[in-house]
């Protein structure tokens, strides 16, 4: 197992290298450059050239990339020119905020998705199944930015129960309860779609497992229905669902962009969008690198979890 994980981690290196090269080339190919973005209306050719020189962007492209790569190997991600601070500081700060948000959303989605899936499989075609399926479909088809605004309107503006935006209270606060209060609405919003996907798949997987012989045997042995469903069947169904949760982790990370914007969550998605529009290439590179690495690591974690659940996959 350890050798397998190590191999997968090593495979990460060329993936990330290729990715940074592609991102670098795309950023170089799209029209507009950082100097124009900074200068806006004042971007005369003369001013642009002067600023590019100050920013070190007048060097040839390959040189710029290799310079960046060389610095990266020394642990230096460079300095963001749109934020005037080291890229690494910004990226780590932003990414931990995204991890908190996406992580809680994924936990919520897993718990509620699995429960909803199991419940509706057990009561297939019953009222519970119909109601659950109805809500799952609504959840799957509601645009998350719209749901987010709706929740803000109800819980922050009308009821005044929860804060509308941000990660911590502006004055005071900063402790765990404060974080949780700010986290609740965005995490729920982000979790909704993933909950739907997980619920649908769990239901299918459970239905399949429940028809298997060993479940009939378990029932015939006189085990309680609860034991049959939650211990025997659910465990087997989980093998099919876990990789989906891994993939959903990727979607949740991606979907965080919208949610972060709506709730003003200081995460990496919102940062990347702004970095691209200001053509802040070093910040884009740093951000993409971290997001891509984490995406691959999530999938690896899901694979490892799956094989530990299913002895047949171990070699």
């Amino acid at each position: 197992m350890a050798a397998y994980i190590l191999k997968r981690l090593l495979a990460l290196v060329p993936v990330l290298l290729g990715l940074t090269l592609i991102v670098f080339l795309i950023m170089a190919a799209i029209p507009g450059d950082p100097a124009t973005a900074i200068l806006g209306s004042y971007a005369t050719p003369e001013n642009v050239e002067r600023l590019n020189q100050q920013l070190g962007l007048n060097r040839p492209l390959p040189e710029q990339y290799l310079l960046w790569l060389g610095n990266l190997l020394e642990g230096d991600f460079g300095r963001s020119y749109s934020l005037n601070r080291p890229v690494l500081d910004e990226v780590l700060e932003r990414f931990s905020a995204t991890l908190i948000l996406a992580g809680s959303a994924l936990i919520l989605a897993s718990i509620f998705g699995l429960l909803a899936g199991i419940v509706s499989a057990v009561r297939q075609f019953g009222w519970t199944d119909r109601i659950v399926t109805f809500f799952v479909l609504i959840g799957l088809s509601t645009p998350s930015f719209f749901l987010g605004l709706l929740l803000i309107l109800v819980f922050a503006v009308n009821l005044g129960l929860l804060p509308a935006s941000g990660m911590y209270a502006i004055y005071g606060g900063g402790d765990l309860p404060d974080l949780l209060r700010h986290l609740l609405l965005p995490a729920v919003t982000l979790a909704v779609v993933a909950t739907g996907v997980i619920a649908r798949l769990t239901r299918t997987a459970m239905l399949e497992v429940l028809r298997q012989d060993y479940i009939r045997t378990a029932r015939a042995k006189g085990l309680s229905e609860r034991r049959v469903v939650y211990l025997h069947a659910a465990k087997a169904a989980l093998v099919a669902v876990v990789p989906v949760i891994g993939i959903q982790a990727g979607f949740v990370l991606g979907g965080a962009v919208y949610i972060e914007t709506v709730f003003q969550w200081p995460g990496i998605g919102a940062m990347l969008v702004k970095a691209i529009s200001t053509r802040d290439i070093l910040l884009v590179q740093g951000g993409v690198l971290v997001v891509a690495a984490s995406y691959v690591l999530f999938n690896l974690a899901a694979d490892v979890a799956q094989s530990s659940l299913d002895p047949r996959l171990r070699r």
Partner: protein
Amino acid sequence: MRCAKHLFPMAAAAMMVLAYPSESAAQTPPNVLIVGQIAEPQSLDPHAVTAVNDFRILMNVYDGLVRYADGTLEVEPALAESWEVSEDGLTYRFELRDGVTFHDGAPLNAEAVKFNFDRMLDEEHPYHDTGPFPLSFFFSAIENVEAVDELTVEFTLSEPYAPFLSNLAYPTGLIVSPAAVEQHGEDFGRNPSGTGAYRFEEWASNQRVVVTRNEDYWGGAPELEAVVFRPITDANTRVAEMLSGGLDLMVEVPPDAMNDFRQADDFQVYEQAGPHLWFLILNMREGPFTEKAARQAVNYAIDKQTLVEDVLQGTADVASGPIAPAFAWAYNEELEPYPYDPERARQLLEEAGYEGDTVTFYVTEGGSGMLDPVAMGTAIQADLAEVGMNVEIETYEWNTFLDRVNPGLEGKADMAEMAWMTNDPDTLPFLTLRTEAFPESGGFNSGYYSNEEVDELLNQARASTDPEERAELYRQMQEIVYEDAPWAFIANWKQGAVTTAAVQNFGLQPSFFLMLHDVTKQ
């Protein structure tokens, strides 16, 4: 199933516990002003930034040698108590206010002022590498800065440059503490120190910038204990945060929210027209707009009143010429906007010999000062279709758009949207309407307007040291440009802000800066 039964009450209980201490969600702290900004500042080094969003903070932390008098774009003394301009317009001598100190305790003196401009302009300066300084060209006319004595500083210009004083009042002219620059180097932007009414306290990235009352402020300490600037990029979220009580003041209110706030008792709405112009550049080198009659026809054909009332929902005024009315001292009161007159437009088009050729119209998706460019572009297209003009829209993302428009419209388009916000009436026409400002000479005259008289007037105005004479030259220039119609003059943006009823003594400025020295909160 049973498990799920327990889970929902548990979740509901957890929600209630989380929601219980709701005072911070509903109320801002007493005597602290929470301001909803549109983005995270780029830096708090006034020489390194270009965005109004950053200027809103900076103007409260720093002072310049001069500043705009309340409610105007006219220059008055600030850190400099007085100044003298030499007859030839080449030497400016400032007498500094005595006894002013920076927030870090260092004294404000002539050497400190010299340090500020040398850092920006002199590539050999030891702290020139703490930039970049994108707007340093505002001061490119400066040849030399000399500290004559402790409190006298003299600027020598390479050529007469009338906008100099007005540029000193711009954030790029704010004076930073040399000691703080020396101490923090390239991180000065995160550890700012000035002489302003509020001193920098804290910058929590992506969450807030906090400034606190400067007890020793030379203009008298402000009443507010502190001001917190929060970046909230999404306009709808900013409105929701205002409605739920998380903000005391918000800027750049979306037009439709403005009407809601206007009708609510707990809020106060502010509006102020700024030095902004939204216009269409017309390509005078080729196509239908080589004819003056066709250019005037466009000005007559566009229903500007409906544009500002319906599309912009009252957040702009109809523009009449190349200089915004906010520059009251230089604005030509006699110009009336081209009236909406489709009949006249049709006549003029006929006169110009326009025969239904396709007119390519560059529209941007958004961008600094562009208001609602897609909706406006579409409305303009419809107005022009009404008088028989066949307009085809091409839409581009902002940076791409600038990349296409700035090098000139020749061979690409007949018409393009554009907006500028400036601090001096000189800037926009000088950079965009002179023959010497053709794109091939490095200017922004993307429509190739050329009129010797206008060139001459603008050059004279720039060299004149007498404000009265300058104003008169600008008024003449406006008349000619109005008649020549190298642009379609559309709108002057009004900035909108909302405060809670508790906020007092607040007013917006035509500069679009946020001045919070006198503001109080009940």
